[in-house]
């Protein structure tokens, strides 16, 4: 593995991990993109070699390893699918919670739960004050 590739993978992973620790969901998506790219860079670095395509080679010629390209491609496609799903989820979360900050997400969630709990409590009290179990329509 060439040093440049190792450094590139490390920097990508490091920046991705840093972004993952952020509060903003969009930044976390960017972090995931960087981290999955670091995996791809590692795969390429693992076996980079230049030469002719590995089909019908004359003996003694340098052959390029065809696998890393296929592997990197597959990893890229998977990364693409992950990012698409992630963006769809974040979009949905923003529509539902009206924020993309983790703290605020937690806060709206807690508020929502408390609201539900109050409603349950109210239901219970209403029933207790109305022992026949007949509910208002």
């Amino acid at each position, binding site marked *: 593995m060439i040093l440049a590739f190792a450094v590139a993978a490390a920097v990508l992973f490091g920046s991705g991990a840093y972004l993952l620790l952020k509060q903003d969901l969009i930044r976390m998506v960017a972090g995931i993109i960087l981290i999955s790219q670091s995996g791809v860079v*590692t795969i390429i670095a693992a076996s980079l070699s230049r030469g002719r395509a590995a089909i019908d080679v004359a003996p003694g010629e340098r052959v390029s390893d065809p*696998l890393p390209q296929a*592997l990197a491609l597959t990893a890229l496609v998977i990364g693409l699918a992950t990012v698409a799903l992630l963006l769809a989820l974040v979009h949905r*979360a923003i529509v539902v919670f009206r924020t993309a900050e983790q703290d605020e997400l937690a806060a709206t969630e807690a508020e929502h739960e408390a609201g539900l709990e109050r409603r349950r409590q109210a239901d219970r009290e209403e029933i207790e004050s109305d022992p026949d179990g007949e509910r208002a329509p």
Partner: protein
Amino acid sequence: MTAHLPALQVLVPLGCAPLCLLLRRFRTVTWLVFLLAALSSLACAVLLATRVDDGPLHYEMGGWPAPYGIEFVVAGFNTPVLLVVSVVAVVAAVYARRSVGDEVDDRRAPLVYTCLCLTLTGLLGLTVTGDVFNAFVFLEISSLSTYALIAMGRRRRALLASFRYLVIGTVGATFVLIGIGFAYAVTGTLNMADLADRLTDLDGNRALYAAVVFVFVGLAVKMAVFPLHAWLPAAYGEAPSAVSTFLAAASTKVAIYVFCRFAFTVFGAGLVFTTMPVGEVGLLLAALAMLVGSAAACFQRDLKYLLAWSSVAQIGYIVAGISLATAAGVSAGYLHVINHAVIKGALFGAAGLLVLRLGSARLDDLAGLGRRMPWTFAAIVVTGLGLVGVPPTAGFASKWALVSALLDAGAWPVLVAVLASSLLALVYVGRIVEAAWFRDPPADLPADQPRAPVSMVAAVWALVLLSVYFGIDASLPGGLADAAAAALLGTGGA
């Protein structure tokens, strides 16, 4: 056609996934397609299981010979996993019809079945593949469809659960990918058997150590081993019930199998357990998982979250058995994989019945329902006793095997953790029983609630009866587990 069974095992569910998407106007048909996929994979798994006695089956995709093409391998070590996944898939399919109809809105139901087909494809593919990169691809197929399935849960929190799992899971998958990259760099091959051959000459290679660490940390995320379990409770707690039934029973189990496959048949037990301290680390984390998981389960207010935390503890048992790296330990781990899949599948199924009837699975809402829903709660109690490990349940059989394996290896501290965790399991199962039978039912309980659909109750009870049967007569799962351990450790079979 029978020669192609290993390929059909994976390709039929894969082909069914786009079919579900195409037929999305007809909701019942999409369900039928998923049921068909599950049944066909069960048929393949059973046929394959009867054939591996004569030795492992190798199948070359596209007719490309083994070290170059992708190879599928079916042997003693993966038939139990194939059987578990496909049995659970069939049960989940029967269960899903009414459960998904109730919890997911009609437009999205076909998507659920599409993703279930893909998850099934991924899990089965991960089990049969003999190629490390192909394993990564199937890992991601199953994970991506799992994230989508979890996001379809009924509450808004399901989105956050899915997001968290997606982030953690993707980092884990990238670790696996980087590990595979290192392994490829030092050996130049991706075929598992070929890798194992070439690795024997590479004693003391640092890149190889890095590969082992990366792959195992990545897999630990998918296995939900203790410090990396954080995604699991919310994911299983928020997913639609049919999905959590399937995932809780199948997905972590497959990840555990992949761990075994890498540890014993790729990197080799000598490197992983003797040169590197994976066994010791595994035992330590397993013990912590048992204690933390069971303790956290005692404090949950929602039945599904309680069950999910208990899964964290149960995974600890399995990891403890495997980390011993002895025949008895690995066999006990496999036995618990089978038994826990059946037990947890039944429990999550029963929780789904409660969700269907009450709209939630909060323990407070279960007050006094034991007499109203006798079948559901009987299922919970029988399988709950299995979680605790009371004889003669299936849980007892595997826990006994684990305890004797631990005794043989002299791992006393882990043994203490197993016993403590079992006591805590008694506490959390007791909480369910207390809520259901010993509390007064709320006054507002309408007298004529809709009855639980027969198909769902039947699916749950099929698993319950299976767990009881495995408790009374452990020869079938025990035989499978022993064969798996023998194949992995190379003392026979493969």
